[in-house]
């Protein structure tokens, strides 16, 4: 871990939790509604004030990555959302790495390209907004935020992980896109593993931990075979270490790794049946949320039941 990432970690550990945090909504919450639900509950239980606004829009990140918008357009959309967040908080939290890296990319453009900066500034003024800097609204990946809350979370869980073996997926757009803005060594991340240990589980290491999940933004649509083959390489490496569960900090990776298992069965006649959960959903199960009514576990293509069965039953109320 470089000194930059160490500084980021120190900054996170010192973060004042008595301020409001802006909860940025993302498109993938339509797929796994339990992730957003669990995140809000975790925050409520640990005394965190989350703020949301109907004035935010989607991040528009994948339009830029597939050349359907201009850098200026993407930056302006990000800046608009940052203006909304700034009304409530200096911290914006994202459950998806796609949103996370889009905001970072917008900040990069503003910093590197003075001409773009002036044009975006002028565009923002037409809607009565200003440029927001990365010092005014800091983007925080929800995984890192939950790590900051780890000791509080440990105090509010109703059951622990019961020595379950858990493999972690961090995701490329957390690790690689803006390594100066994260608390992890992009080549060897470990904060989620530390959290798993605190919550009573056994983290499982695997060779391909930093390999792409296969999504490639939307390569599943453009190059389905290549996309599936990459996902397969990753999944085989995970299975070789015999985990009960895969946990990820990114809703997009979650979707890819969950859905892909159906495809592996069809395309390669290979059944995996390794449940995939977002870290928020996993903690949701430990704090006692109802797997179906609250966490919508049936929205997962790969059944999560085998994992839920491994956990100790919840204590009677």
């Amino acid at each position, binding site marked *: 871990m470089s000194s930059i990432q160490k500084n980021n970690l120190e900054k996170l550990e010192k973060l004042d939790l008595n301020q409001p945090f802006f909860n940025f*909504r993302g*498109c993938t*919450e*339509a797929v796994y509604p339990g992730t957003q639900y669990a995140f809000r509950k975790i925050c409520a239980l640990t005394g965190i004030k989350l703020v949301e606004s*109907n*004035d*935010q*829009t*989607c991040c*528009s990140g*994948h*339009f830029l*990555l*597939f*050349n*359907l*918008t*201009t850098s*200026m*357009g*993407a*930056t*302006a*959309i990000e800046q*608009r959302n940052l203006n*909304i967040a700034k009304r409530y908080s200096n911290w914006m939290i994202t459950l998806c790495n796609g949103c996370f890296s889009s905001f970072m990319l917008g900040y990069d453009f503003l910093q590197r390209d003075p001409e773009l900066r002036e*044009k*975006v500034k*002028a*565009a*923002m003024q*037409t*809607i009565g907004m200003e440029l927001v800097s990365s010092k005014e609204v800091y983007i925080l990946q929800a995984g890192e935020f939950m790590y900051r809350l780890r000791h509080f979370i440990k105090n509010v869980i109703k059951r622990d992980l019961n020595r379950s073996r858990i493999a972690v997926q961090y995701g*490329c*757009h957390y*690790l*690689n*896109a803006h*390594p100066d803005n994260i608390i992890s060594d*992009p*080549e060897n991340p470990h904060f989620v593993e530390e959290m798993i240990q605190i919550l009573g589980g056994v983290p499982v290491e695997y060779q391909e931990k*930093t*390999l*792409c999940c296969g*999504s*490639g*933004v*939307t*390569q599943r*649509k*453009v*190059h389905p*075979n*290549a*996309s599936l*083959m*990459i996902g397969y*390489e990753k999944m085989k490496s995970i299975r070789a270490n015999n985990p009960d569960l895969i946990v990820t900090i990114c809703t997009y990776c979650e979707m890819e790794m969950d859905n892909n298992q159906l495809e592996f069965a069809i395309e390669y006649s290979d059944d995996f049946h390794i449940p995939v959960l977002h870290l928020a959903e996993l903690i949701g199960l430990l704090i006692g949320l109802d797997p179906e009514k609250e966490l919508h576990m049936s929205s997962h293509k790969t059944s999560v039941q085998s994992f839920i069965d491994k956990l100790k039953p919840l204590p009677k109320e």
Partner: protein
Amino acid sequence: MTKFKLVSADVIKCLSCGRCTGYCPASRVSDYNIRHILNRVLDGDTSVLTDSLIWLCFICGTCIVKCPQEGLWPPKIIQNLREYALNKGHGAWAVAHLIPAVDNFFKYGAVLKGIFPVSPKAIEEINKLGELTGMKAILEKRKKLVEESKE
């Protein structure tokens, strides 16, 4: 280089060491080779624009972390090439799938209708920004290209 003036000037920093390719997921499963593509750019080989291989990058950023050269971002160069290719009329097949999502974005403020509530004011504002920043013009241009490519 002049033939590729839209491509990030950072490409000249490339040492051709191949570390990027060694760790590239797309290279593991296809003929995609980022080092070769960067070499072709440096050689001024414009055929790279019509080469479907440029669409195989997964934009995972692994090469950014592995590259010994500070500030050299291969996926950014790939995106520049794709932009260049689209403007020359190539690659509609690779972007067509996302166009409905952009349309939804301007209509609903989200890539799908009703994922979360979005205020009418927010939708009005993104449409204004879309006009002012050229985002909508690009969308129309891409739609036209996709239509023409179908014919």
